[in-house]
């Protein structure tokens, strides 16, 4: 019967969520907003490029002085710049409006700043003065080198193609990093999108006074496990909706999206890292969900439970402070702490798994911690739900609930409803 009820609970929780109009408004809003934002960025970039081109070709009056001797009269003529008598004269010319800009090239521009003076055209358009000064100097240097090839190499524009090996086998580079990190994206998506629902999942029974009907009909473990699984399924559905435009575009409209221009490396799906990533995702999700459910079980209202949301959110973002160390020194103390502390472990371990710095032993320990922690939190959530959900209007002391046993209100806290 328990298995039958688990399926019933999962079905009820899943269906009642996905049949709500507000669920689809919320879910579809994300890709719609993304499309709008991308559209605006595209339009904005086009406008910016057009404006930049317009600025580049725009004629404005320039004077300059060059203590370095790099800028020749020919170079300056290309930019329609005329020499100033002195820096002071150049500045005064700008102030009087005789010229639009004056560039003061120092004797050692490689170590000393080029000073640029211009008529104020607003913070965005003022950028053109510096750009033209830079272009003048670059043109002058290219002329000195007198070789386009050397100029390109000196500018650090040489193309580099790196091949690395794991033993004798060629490693995948970025192509192996991206696929396992998909689990990190999914983890963030699930937690950020569903944390509120997790927190409120048992509060609903409490606030609606359904608890007693439920507790006499099915085991609280079944109820909570059913809710957790349903939430996971709902989260995956949302992720599918979010990513479907990208997947559809990549599969059916690659040309229109110019994906080849992105120069993406071929993705390599390492089965070991993918399996580890999946297990960390499931374990981490289960741990966070059961923790949030436990918190919800002891809080009388959604508002009070919401205060704990920030703490849980912080725990999943904190590991990013150590992301550089995860790559460069995965055995640093702080990385090890983040790897094995249950609430920072999912993000840290998923990052390290993606970067390839999480070995199998460490992965096994982390997975065990996550699943073990989830089991403990599930047990705790069940206890707190059994005890806390009957205290309809008051916050339950966790210590009291644990000390009193799963259903024994015998350690100080009387029930909030009359013992009639």
């Amino acid at each position, binding site marked *: *019967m*328990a298995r*039958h*009820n688990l399926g*019933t*609970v999962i079905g*009820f929780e899943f269906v*009642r969520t996905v049949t709500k109009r507000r669920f689809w408004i919320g879910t579809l809003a994300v890709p719609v907003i993304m499309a709008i934002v991308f559209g605006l960025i595209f339009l904005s970039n086009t406008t910016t490029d057009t404006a930049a081109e317009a600025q580049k070709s725009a004629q404005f009056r320039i004077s300059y002085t060059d203590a370095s001797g790099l800028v020749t009269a020919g170079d300056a003529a290309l930019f329609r710049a005329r020499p100033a008598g002195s820096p002071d004269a150049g500045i005064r010319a700008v102030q009087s409006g005789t010229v639009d800009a004056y560039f003061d090239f120092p004797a050692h521009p490689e170590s000393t700043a080029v000073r640029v003076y211009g008529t104020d055209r607003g913070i965005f358009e003022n950028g053109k003065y510096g750009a033209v000064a830079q272009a003048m100097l670059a043109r002058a240097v290219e002329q000195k080198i007198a070789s386009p090839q050397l100029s390109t190499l000196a500018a650090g524009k040489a193309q580099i193609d790196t091949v690395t090996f794991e033993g004798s086998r060629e490693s995948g580079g970025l192509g192996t990093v991206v696929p396992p990190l998909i689990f990190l994206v999914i983890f963030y998506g699930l937690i950020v999108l569903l944390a509120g629902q997790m927190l409120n999942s048992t509060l*609903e029974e409490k606030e*609606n*006074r*359904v*608890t*007693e*009907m439920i*507790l*006499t*009909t*099915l*085991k609280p473990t079944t109820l909570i496990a059913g809710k957790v699984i349903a939430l996971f399924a709902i989260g995956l559905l949302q992720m599918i909706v979010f990513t479907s435009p990208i997947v559809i575009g990549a599969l059916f409209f690659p040309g229109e999206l110019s994906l080849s221009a992105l120069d993406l490396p071929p993705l390599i799906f390492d089965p070991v890292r993918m399996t580890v990533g999946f297990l960390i995702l499931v374990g981490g999700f289960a741990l966070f969900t059961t923790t949030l459910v436990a918190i919800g079980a002891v809080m009388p209202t959604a508002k009070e439970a919401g205060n704990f949301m920030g703490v849980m959110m912080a725990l999943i973002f904190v590991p990013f402070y150590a992301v550089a160390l995860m790559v460069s020194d995965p055995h640093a103390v702080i990385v090890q702490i983040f790897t094995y502390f249950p609430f920072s472990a999912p993000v840290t371990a998923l990052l390290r798994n993606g970067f390839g710095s999480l070995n199998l032993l460490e992965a096994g320990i982390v997975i065990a911690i996550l699943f073990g922690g989830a089991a403990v939190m599930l047990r705790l959530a069940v206890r707190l739900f*059994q005890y806390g959900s*009957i205290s*309809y209007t008051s916050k339950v002391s966790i210590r009291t609930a644990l000390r009193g*046993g*799963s*259903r*024994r*209100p*015998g*350690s*100080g*806290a*009387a*029930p909030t*409803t*009359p*013992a*009639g």
Partner: protein
Amino acid sequence: MDEARVHISGFRMDFGATTVIRDLSFDVQAGETFGFLGSNGSGKTTTIRALLGIYEPTAGILHINGRGFRPEHGDRLGYLPEERGLYKKEKVIDIMTYFGRLKGMDRRAARQWSLAYLDRVALADKASSLLDKLSSGQQQKVQLGVTIMNNPELLILDEPTKGFDPVNRRLLMDIIAGQKRAGATVVMVTHQMEEVERLCDRVILLKDGTAEAYGTIDEVQNKYGGRIIRIKYSGTIPPSPHYAVLLQETNYAELTITDATDEAAILKDLIDDGVTVRSFTTTKVSLEDIFLRVYGDQNEPDVGPPEAGRRTPDGRLSGDNRISRDGA
């Protein structure tokens, strides 16, 4: 002897340093309707919650069908809790189908049963409505429907008429009576004494966590004097060791016999004491009278004047402590 449907023995329940129930024992036999009575705070709901495993008892045995209750056995239990509610943002038919499935019915059967029930309680047009769009009374009907799904063999109803108007209260009682006819054992926690007298085979009165009275209604009535004398008179009713004055208004009084004296002897005493008796009738003491006598001293604001119902040290109602009709 048949095994009791509900068996409670030596039940004790502590909340911290406070003992709510002390050494409570009673049985509910299969097929009977059992009234579980007591004032607010007397421990009725606590007992029910402990019986159903929601609370863990401090001590004692609480069995249903010979074993401690577990949710896995809940498919044949119908429980209407005092603190009631359902999923407010869901459709009525979805809620009922869900609970039907939790109780072991398949989806189709649960849905069909629910629609038939909603039709019976005049809510057929609300099947697809969200629960919170229904009135409080309509929600109560839905909750009752959920309670009696899958033909429970044990119905535990905690204040079942709470929130019902008189018409729907009658409908509710008819439904409960129907469940009883179908063979269900019914445990009713209620303050509606008329319903208890009409429906219940046996009752228990809980006071301060112990059984104040327990047995058939006749047995309980007999314990509390059995009969009430209603008289219309003129003059002054004198104090007597043979009766206590329950109610006294102008030229009207209700007396309860406090010893073995019969009614005729009391009538003779009244006449001998100069009371002009215009009518003299006797009836059985009602459960409501008994309730007031048992709980009057702890529910003073609810039952009438501050002195109402207070008992003398020897257990009789004081002639000065009359209960007015309003207070009753």
